[in-house]
Structure formats: C-alpha cells, structure tokens
C-alpha cells in the first residue's frame, strides 16, 4: 500500500496497558471517551493523505426523471480534475443492496429519488470538485413521482423489481372470534413520520489504490465484510483485492448499514491511481443515507370485559422509498412485534413495504418495532379507556412471560420480565416538580408560557423487540485471541460505532484471562472473518461472545500446555491478576513468562438457528427478545402546542449488566432519540423532496428538551445462551420512549394525536373543548 502512514491512524481499539484488569460488571471507562471529548479522536472525516484527491458526487435534483443526456466532458476539461465517472465506468455489478441488489451505483438512464448519485468526480481540491460537478451536463426529463405509499401497489412499477418489497400476511390463532358480541374493541389509524439517524459524523472515507489493481478503503461503517462483498462485486474484483478498514465512526444508528460513498471512492481511486477522499456535507448526508420508514398503520384491538386481549388486527404500510435496502427485514420486525409484549391469542396482521420515489428507507435503531410500538401502545391506552381500566393494570394483565406464545407461534424460552419491567417503571416515585424557572416550561428559552398556561400529563408505555438477526439468517462473528509475552491481542471486525465494544473487550479479557494487558487490533477485513453488523442489538452477544469464547479457548490451551509441562491436572490451574496459579510449591509464573511461546485461538460464534416465517407469518424466526418501559411526564402549553418533557423514567430488561455506565449511556441516548421522534424529528418530504436537509431545520433534542433519564431498574434475568447472560440493550430505549411521551401529551390535552412527531399545530389548532382555551387578561 502506498503512503499509508500518511493516513490518520484511527486507533479506537488500543487500550491502556497500565490500568488494573477490568471485569464484567465494572464501570470501565471507554478508551475512546476522552479523545472524543477533547477532539483528539480521528473521525473518518479526518482521514488525510498527502497525495489525495477529493471526490464529489453529482446528485439528481428530481425525485423521478429520465436522463436524456449526460456528458462529463466539460468537467474533465477543467484543470485539476482527474476523473469524472458515470454508470458506464462501473466494471462489475451495476447495482448493490443489502437484501437485494436493486440500487444503481450510479444512475443508468433513470433517477428514482431526489439525491440519487448520477456522476462522480475526483479533483485536486474540494472547490475544484464542486466546479467539476457544476460543469457536468445532464438533461433530465422529469416524470411524475410516485410519492404516496398508498398508491404504490396499484401504480405502474417504477423499478423492474416492482413496487412491493414485501408483503407479510400473519395469521395466528382462531380467526373466527371477530363476531363475538361480548368483546370490547377499539380502532385507530396511526402515522409515523420519517426520522433520520442524525449522526454527527457525515459519511466520509478514503480509498487508496494498492498499485496492483486492488484497493484499500478506509470508511466509517457498521459492517465491514458486507460492505466489502458489495464493493468487490461492483468493482468486479475478487473479495481479497478489496480491503476495508474501519475509520473513526461518528455515530451510526442504522444509517451506515448500507453503502454510500464506498464504491464511488474505490472507482475514483482505481481510475486515478491516487488516494481519493470524500466527505459529505450535512445536506448531502441527508440525501446520502437511508432513513426510518414512514408508516401508516390501522389497528383494531378486541378484549373481553375483564381486559384480556382476545384478538388484534392490523394493516401496516411502510414506505421504503426508491430502493430495497433492508425494507424486507424492517417489515418482518414491524409485523412480528406489531402487538407488543402482550399475550394475543388471535391475530391477523398484514404488513406491506412498498417502493416509491421518496428517499430510500432502511435501518434505524428499533428497526420496525418503533413504528408499531407507537401504534400498539396508543391502542392499549384507548382500550384501557374503553374498559374503564387503569392502563398499567391492562398492560400487566396481558403481559407476556417466559413460556408464552407470540403471534408468530414462537414460544418464548428465554427470559422475558415484562411485568417486572412494567412494575419497576410505573411504580418508581416521581421527582417531578412544577418548575419555577420560566425557561423550564414548554417553549423554553422563548418564554412563551406562564404557569397557568401549562397542563401536565403522564403515561407509561412498553416496547418489545427481537435481538439478533432473524428469519434463518446465518449470523456469525469471528474473533481471535493471541497471548504473547503476557499481552493479549484481540482481533475482530466488529465495528465500534459508539456502542462500547472497545470497552467490553477489555472487560471480557480481564474476566477470562485476568489481565489488563490488552490490545484490540483495528477492525478490518484482513485476516479475520465477518463480525456481522453493529445493529440489531447484536454485537455484545455475537462479537462479545466470540471474544469470550476465543479467550476461553486460549486460556484452556495455555493451561493445558502448562499442566502438561508440570504434570498436574489442567483443572487445578487458573489465571489470576496476570499470573498462573495452582502449580505445586506455590510457584506462580507470570502470564508474560508463560506465553513466551504464544497461544492463539480463533472462534466463529453463532447464535441458535432460526427459521424463515411461513406463509402465515408463523415460525421460530427470532433468537431472543427484550422489553423496556418508559414513563413520561410532560408539560404542555395547549394554546401554542409546545411541549416540555419534564421527566422520563425507564426500566429495561438487560439480562445482565456488563458495564453499568455504558448501559446507562445507551438508555439515555436511546431515549433522547425517542423523545425526538415524539415531538420534533422528521425528515419533511414533499413531492419526493426533502425540505429540511440541515440541522437548522431537522431538529433534534437539546439539553432543554431532554430531561434527565431516571433509571428505575435494570432488570437482570440472565438470558440462556447469551454471553454472561447479557441481552443487547441498544435499541429498546428508542422504542418505548416515543409512545410514553405522546401518551403523556394525550393525557395532558385529551387529544388523539395519532401521528408523530406531534407538531405544535396538531395541538394548538386541534378542535378542543372550549373550557381549555386560554385564560383571559384580568379586567
């Protein structure tokens, strides 16, 4: 590789060697924590090479158009421009995709969403690259965009693969109960807007040609190996000629599961023979990654008069936008978890994910369960109201537990402490007081509300989701542990995107091998197999488990060797505080002495197998489940429709806590994303065009919008089969926080609020009981 030392070394993985060994359960600090706060951490946008060129992408201004003419000649004629490429320059597969390869690397004659890449350039300076993009001549013939997901199925296909990504028709239990006259039923239509992952580090990376036809790509991603395979296919190269290394990731939340600039960078680097860097602007980033699926959902719940759920019917329509991405898996999750963590003996759920000319949607924290949780929790509150029951009591009465059967027909065999989580959260004392400080009222710094303009509401919600990949996916993670001269070197391709794998590795090594002398190799595709994606709440289980098994195997090999040397049973020996103990005469060699001759162990870790859903949406499709609860207390200014979340309390099913500090971090951050979806976060799309592609207008919660998260309980019921009994915890906080906040706004205002995010006008301009109108100025 040429000039590689000039690339900023992104050493997220290297941990200090002088600290005492961390153990499972410790508050071990993140090795990348301080550098991230001080600005020393190298993000992918900091990549640098002295000989590098700058890449740029020309994107479609139209959500739907035919390209009549495309000429990159004028760009190439500019001084300082080294390459300008179109679809004709893609040597391998012209399309890519995580589930199916339906998305063009560069548009070929037609564009299907605003922002679709049409051409790419490499130039000596970002400004030259911008001028080159301006010089490219494209003639578009706009065609009417298909932007209404409800019309997608019946419309002309906008892609050769058709307009339906997937349909799941789930039927469970007795389908004849509907006619029973003794049932109470409630019905609602719910809508979830398009949320963005809103990570801070925009897409960036650098491709470096190896001079031999291959390429090294440094990029911020969630899944190095899946990227590599897709990139290699598009480049027409064997996988081993394309090497990916993880560059510093500035947040992911699902938005880095799909390719973005990966193939473009490699094409430009291979064409120019020079390293090429690209870094999206914020606006470009909004067009450059998938978003959370907007959804329209119809629900009807039936219960008997004492509040036992009898049946749930639902229609789920998910707008996947122009290309497939992970729509099919998102829809499966939405459908399977559409009824929440409740016993539902009879269900009929039809889920459809469709293609439109809207921005492509795919993975985002919560992955399908977020949308349906908003709906099923609203339904549970409606039902409680119809039955005259306390909403918490209704939930408790119907709570799933180990041994129960899901609407997919799968029996829950692992831990599932729904009642424990619900009771801990709902029963937690509230510390919420009426704020004295005007800034602490709805409207915040704008000082819009006086005390008597504010009403308070409270609600509890439960969230439910699978952990790991589902539906028969052969999910694996490989890890290697080498112990040499007392230093443990761990190799894994697990992408650290902020979840804390780099911390956990040190704790696992401390726990299993009793030492703090740990080096975590930078994550790459070289010399190690896939770790799978950092998504689906799966890396602690999958890659943490792989590291644990690799460490155990290395320890076993080492102790067996020493036991052989000293002719003692291996079972007598252990590794404690960097020493081998249990040898005769109190002799205890240090780990350094014991590993002058190294031991190495590699392990590929798999979770229990699953099966695809059958034609009725039934089957043991999931590995494990997790439940979470949130209670929100909100203050609302009904006249202006402004909201202030006053308190957020949570309890979560975590299996076992591996690092309390990191666990709390996940719960807080995830809840903030849920609050955002509840009251402000939406990619506003009109006619297929994004209206707010900036952080000026795509609003995420500030410190004045996000209350402290009260942790009522981290419920520890170890999960059988999971490393150390720990469940993945990253997604749950985002799932139940949104419905809790909206439920609380409903309780404060009496409004139905069937859509998130709740906009000020949804409250202020709703038809409201006149008694709630604003107090008059005293005469």
């Amino acid at each position, binding site marked *: 590789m040429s000039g590689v030392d000039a690339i900023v070394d992104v050493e997220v993985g290297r941990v200090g060697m002088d600290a005492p060994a961390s153990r499972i359960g410790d508050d071990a600090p993140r090795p990348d924590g301080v550098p991230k706060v001080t600005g020393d951490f190298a993000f992918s946008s900091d990549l640098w090479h002295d000989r590098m060129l700058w890449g740029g992408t020309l994107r479609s201004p139209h959500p739907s158009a035919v390209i009549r003419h495309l000429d990159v000649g004028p760009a190439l004629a500019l001084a300082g421009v080294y390459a300008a490429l179109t679809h004709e320059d893609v040597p391998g597969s012209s399309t890519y995709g995580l589930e199916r390869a339906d998305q063009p690397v560069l548009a070929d004659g037609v564009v299907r969403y605003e922002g679709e890449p049409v051409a790419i350039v490499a130039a000596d300076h970002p400004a030259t690259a*911008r001028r080159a993009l301006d010089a490219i001549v494209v003639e578009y013939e706009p065609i009417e965009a298909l932007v209404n997901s409800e019309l997608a199925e019946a419309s002309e296909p906008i892609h050769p693969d058709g307009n339906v990504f997937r349909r799941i028709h789930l039927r469970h239990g007795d389908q004849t109960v509907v006619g029973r006259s003794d049932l109470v039923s409630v019905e609602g239509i719910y809508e979830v807007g398009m949320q963005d992952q809103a990570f801070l580090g925009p897409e960036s990376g650098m491709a470096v040609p190896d001079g031999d036809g291959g390429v090294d790509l440094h990029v911020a991603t969630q899944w190095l190996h899946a990227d590599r395979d897709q990139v290699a296919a598009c480049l027409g190269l064997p996988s081993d000629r394309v090497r990916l290394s993880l560059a510093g990731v500035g947040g992911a939340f699902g938005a880095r599961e799909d390719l973005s600039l990966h193939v473009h960078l490699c094409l430009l680097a291979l064409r120019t023979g020079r390293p090429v860097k690209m870094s999206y*602007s914020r*606006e470009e980033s909004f067009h450059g990654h998938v978003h959370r699926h907007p959804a329209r959902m119809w629900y009807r719940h039936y219960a008997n008069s004492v509040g036992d759920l009898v049946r749930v019917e639902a229609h789920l329509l998910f707008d996947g936008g122009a290309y497939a991405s992970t729509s099919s898996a998102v829809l499966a999750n939405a459908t399977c978890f559409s009824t929440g963590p409740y016993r539902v003996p009879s269900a009929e759920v039809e889920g459809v994910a469709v293609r439109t000319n809207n921005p492509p949607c795919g993975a985002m924290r919560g992955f399908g369960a977020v949308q349906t949780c908003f709906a099923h929790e609203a339904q549970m509150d409606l039902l409680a109201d119809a039955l005259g029951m306390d909403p918490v009591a209704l939930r408790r009465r119907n709570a799933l537990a180990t041994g129960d059967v899901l609407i997919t027909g799968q029996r829950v065999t692992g831990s599932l402490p729904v009642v424990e989580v619900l009771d801990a959260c709902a029963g937690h004392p509230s510390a919420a007081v009426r704020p004295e400080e005007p*800034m602490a009222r*709805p*409207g*915040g*710094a*704008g*000082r*819009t*509300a*006086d*005390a*008597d*303009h504010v009403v308070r509401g409270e609600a509890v919600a439960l969230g439910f989701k699978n952990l790991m990949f589902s539906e028969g996916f052969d999910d694996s993670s490989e890890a290697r542990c080498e112990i040499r001269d007392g230093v443990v070197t761990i190799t894994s391709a697990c992408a650290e995107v902020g979840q804390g794998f780099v911390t956990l590795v040190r704790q696992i090594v401390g726990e299993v091998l009793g030492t703090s002398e740990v080096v975590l190799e930078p994550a790459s595709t070289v010399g190690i197999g896939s770790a799978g994606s950092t998504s689906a709440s799966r890396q602690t289980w999958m890659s943490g488990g792989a590291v644990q098994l690799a460490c155990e195997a290395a320890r076993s090999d080492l102790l067996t060797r020493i036991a052989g040397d000293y002719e003692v049973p291996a079972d007598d020996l252990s590794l404690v505080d960097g020493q081998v103990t249990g040898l005769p005469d109190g002799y205890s060699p240090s780990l350094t002495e014991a590993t002058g001759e190294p031991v190495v162990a590699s392990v590929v870790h798999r979770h229990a197998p699953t099966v695809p859903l059958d034609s009725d949406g039934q089957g043991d499709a999931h590995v494990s489940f997790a439940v979470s609860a949130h209670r929100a207390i909100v203050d609302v200014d009904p*006249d*202006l*429709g*402004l909201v*202030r979340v006053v308190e957020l309390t949570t309890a979560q099913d975590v299996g076992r806590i591996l690092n309390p500090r990191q666990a709390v971090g996940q719960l807080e951050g995830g809840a903030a994303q849920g609050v955002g979806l509840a*009251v*402000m976060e939406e990619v*506003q799309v009109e006619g297929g065009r994004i*209206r*707010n592609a900036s952080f*000026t*207008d795509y*609003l995420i*919660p*500030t*410190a*004045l*919008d996000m209350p402290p998260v009260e942790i009522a309980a981290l419920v520890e019921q170890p999960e059988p089969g999971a490393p150390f009994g720990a469940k993945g915890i990253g997604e749950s906080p985002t799932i139940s926080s949104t419905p809790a906040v909206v439920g609380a706004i409903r309780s404060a205002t009496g409004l139905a609020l069937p859509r998130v995010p709740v*906009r*000020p*006008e949804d409250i*202020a*301009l709703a038809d409201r009981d006149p008694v709630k109108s*604003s107090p*008059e*100025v*005293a*005469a």
Partner: protein
Amino acid sequence: MTATIARTLDEACAALADRPHAVVLAGGTDLMVEANRGGRDMEDVVVVDRIPELRGWAQHGGSLRIGACTTCAEIGDGELASLVPALAQAARTVGSPQIRNAATIGGNLGTASPAGDTLPVLAALDAEVEVRSASASRMLPLHDFVIGPKATALEPGELIAAVHLPVTDGPQEFLKVGVRNAMVISVASLALVVDRPGRNVRIALGSVGPVPIRAVEAEVLAAERIDWSGNGILDSEVVERVCELVADAARPIDDHRGTIAYRRHAVDVLARRSLRRALASEEERNGL
C-alpha cells in the same frame, strides 16, 4: 481572495472603499454557515469583530448606542439588559451559549432574516441603524434598513457601525415560538414595548412576514384604551380586539417550519400573553 482584519473603524471603511463588494465578517455565525453551503462568494473579506469602536454600548440621555459588534451574550446580560429588557430577552433566545458569544447585533441586522430575533424588538423601539462608509455616515430607521427578506439598504462600501434606540419607561416583552425549547429558529415572535410617559404601546412581529411588522392598529387601540392614569389595565374585550388586530397584521407564509394558520394563531396568543404580563399588577405578576 483577500482578508483584512481591521483594527479601527477607519481601516474597515478604507478596506471597503478599496473593495466595495467585500463581505463583512463579524461573528461569522451566519456567514460561515452560508459559506459552507457554498451559497456565498467570499472573494474578499473584511473582518470587523476586533474593532473597539464597534464593540460595547453607551447611553446618551434617553438614547442608547449599541456597537454593531456587541454580542448577543453581552446584550443579554448586565446593565444593558435592564435598560432594554426586550432586546435582552431576544438576545438570550438566539442559538446556544456558544453562538451567543459570537453572534453580533450587527450580524443579525446584516442578515436581515425574517426570523432574526433582535429585529422585532428594534422595530418596536423605532431603532435607527448607523451606517458608515469611508466618505459618509447616515442614520436609517429600521424599516428603511431592512427592505426585504435577507435584504438591507446597505450600499457597497458601507458597514453597520451601531444601532441607536431609546430607553423607555415601562414594561417590555419579547416572546418567541419555536418547535424546540432552545436553539431554534423562530416560527413566530412578538415584541411589546409599553411607554408609560409617552402613553403609547408598540407591538412588532417577527417570522410572520418578509420583514418585521408593526401591528399599528393594535398599538393605537391598546394605547387608547389603556387606563393610563389608573392601574394601567385593559379590559378583556379590548384585549380580544387588540389580539385580533395583531393576528390580522401578520403576513405569514407556509413553510417547513410552520403553517400560515399556526403562525397567525401564535402571534394572537403571544399578544395576549405579553399584554397580560406587561399590564399585570405586581401581585398578579408574582403569580405568573
């Protein structure tokens, strides 16, 4: 590209005379955002935030002169804040602490955004903008200075030196509606100034028109009907009518930040609330 870091007002004016189309850079909180988005050609830049004459404020009798490079943080705090409370309230709603430390009042005027938060207050106070060039100095009333959305009356070679406004005796309010509780662009805002000795009321609206709007009819009605000699209170029917007139004065648009209907509704609510705060007795105010 050239960049002149001016140390005196004369230096800045001279640099602008040399390159009349140079861009003036103060805190950069608007300009850099624009530059990063590629929306502004910045061939020549004149940096003005280190010019002592443009910083800080002074009181001359009943009038204040606030230097163009005075920051929102400075306006929101201290003695100045007690002299023009509504301006301080507006300045405190701008961005975040980091932004307020850099953002200047001159920059807010220079950008002349319909959502610029200090503008409704300056409009309500009939502020005047002191404009300088190498050869001249002129004073422009705010409504002659802000001539359209993001458009000012500045000529090439001119810069904003200061803004002049009166110190009034009476309550002032600034209220701003945004979708987020802080660091948010205003969807609608309202500034209210009650001048007791002058027996007049001024109401200006932000983010509901191309430029800050004075709700003149509402002002006149309120001034007429306030019981100036007594406890300064308006009866509720009059309040209704004043708020209606305020809402009528708004000329909002539909955009991704808010709808016409919501914006009109919001200024109505803001008018009601600001009047109540301003006209409430001491005792009532404590209960708010």
